[in-house]
């Protein structure tokens, strides 16, 4: 009854709000359609066949460049990623300025949290069981994850370089001291996100980051000599080892996504 009344009022309103016929509609729509097609698919005489134009037009989408896609993905990163990154960078820079060489260990202790944030943010959809949904979107899940990890990885590397430049106390070795806990945490978090989904996965990743952070502090307190110059090669070996492990784990995660896509 109420619905009928609503429909009846709607009909009356439509009659009442009747505008005069637009004069230039047909002409404008022709031009508009042409312009829109050009904008989506490029100029008409761009060498594409009619069939290709037709097929592309049916999707109504212009292919995006990698940079543009990364810029879009940037907007999907949660504010916590930026907050944690800024906090880690801020604490490290402050500690470096305040405690000189001692502050260096504060930076090393904070770095694992950067790694944890990067991995959990990149695999967010998988963590929350939203991978299938993301796969149904415009880009494949792999390209989305790769774009996110690319953004976060570059951002984190930039942070590490800034820290190194700021606390220039041990030459180039500083980067190794920072990279080892970072890669170690990244490897651990990759293993966890591949195996555990949901909130538990994030807690476990936070646990790994905290453990690595504590380990850094303990190592500094108990074995300060490992920072000596003669152990640089060891650090380098550990860093390379961790990098290999992290890449291997990354590949396994991506392969798993391919299986998901195939299914």
């Amino acid at each position, binding site marked *: 009854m109420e619905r009928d009344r609503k429909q009846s009022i709607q009909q*009356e309103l439509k009659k009442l709000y009747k505008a005069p016929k637009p004069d230039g*509609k047909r002409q404008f729509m022709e031009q508009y*359609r042409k312009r829109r097609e050009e904008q989506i698919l490029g100029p008409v005489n761009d060498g594409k066949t009619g069939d290709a134009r037709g097929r592309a037009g049916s999707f109504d989408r212009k292919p995006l460049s990698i940079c543009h896609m990364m810029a879009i993905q940037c907007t999907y990163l949660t504010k916590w990623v930026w907050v944690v990154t800024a906090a880690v960078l801020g604490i490290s820079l402050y500690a470096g300025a305040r405690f000189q060489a001692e502050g260096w260990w504060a930076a090393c202790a904070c770095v694992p949290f950067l790694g944890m944030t990067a991995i959990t943010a990149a695999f967010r959809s998988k963590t929350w069981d939203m991978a299938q949904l993301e796969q149904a979107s415009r880009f494949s899940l792999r390209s989305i994850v790769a774009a996110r990890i690319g953004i976060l990885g570059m951002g984190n590397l930039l942070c590490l370089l800034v820290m190194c430049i700021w606390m220039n106390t041990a030459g180039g070795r500083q980067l190794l001291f920072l990279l080892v806990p970072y890669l170690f945490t990244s490897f651990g978090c990759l293993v966890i996100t591949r195996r555990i989904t949901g909130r538990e996965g994030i807690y476990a990743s936070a646990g790994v980051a905290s453990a690595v952070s504590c380990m850094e502090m303990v190592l500094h307190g108990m074995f300060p000599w490992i920072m000596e110059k003669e152990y640089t090669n060891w650090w380098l070996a550990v860093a390379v080892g961790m990098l290999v492990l992290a890449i291997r784990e990354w590949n396994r995660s991506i392969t798993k996504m391919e299986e998901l896509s195939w299914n």
Partner: protein
Amino acid sequence: MQPDMEEQYDKIYRYCYFKLGNPQLAEDITQEAFLRSLESERFRVGGRPLAFLYTIARNLCIDEYRKRKYDFLPEELLEQKALESGLDQEEELLNSMELRRALMELTSQERELVLLRYVNEVPVEELADVMGVSRFKIYRDTKKILKKLERGISYGTRPKAKHTTGAEKAL
């Protein structure tokens, strides 16, 4: 999903026309809104294209309104429409007059909502985007407006208009 542009052209034109009361100007603004939306990446890549289109049209109308000091939804325009809309039957004409009166009692924002929601049938989500309010507010407001209109036209209470035949008239 991209909306049907031909259909949207008419609807946006109607919206502009009832905002400004000038068919030529309304058409100019409609075309300008379409062209501007085309230039924007947001229109093509994602988001809500319809809401975006309406927002552009609305802003253009507001600019024009500020420039020329129009009276939003002029009373004469609705009155004229009520008479011109091809309502040959007496009851329909009366209904329409009552509805027009009920519409005049609404605020300009409420009338805009009526036009967008009930005449142009803009989905609630898109409408919320255009008006810059939540969906719940749109639901509440449209319900309130509908009640006001119902009260105004008092459906069912007025006796049906009697149609007279030619023979009766002669008598």
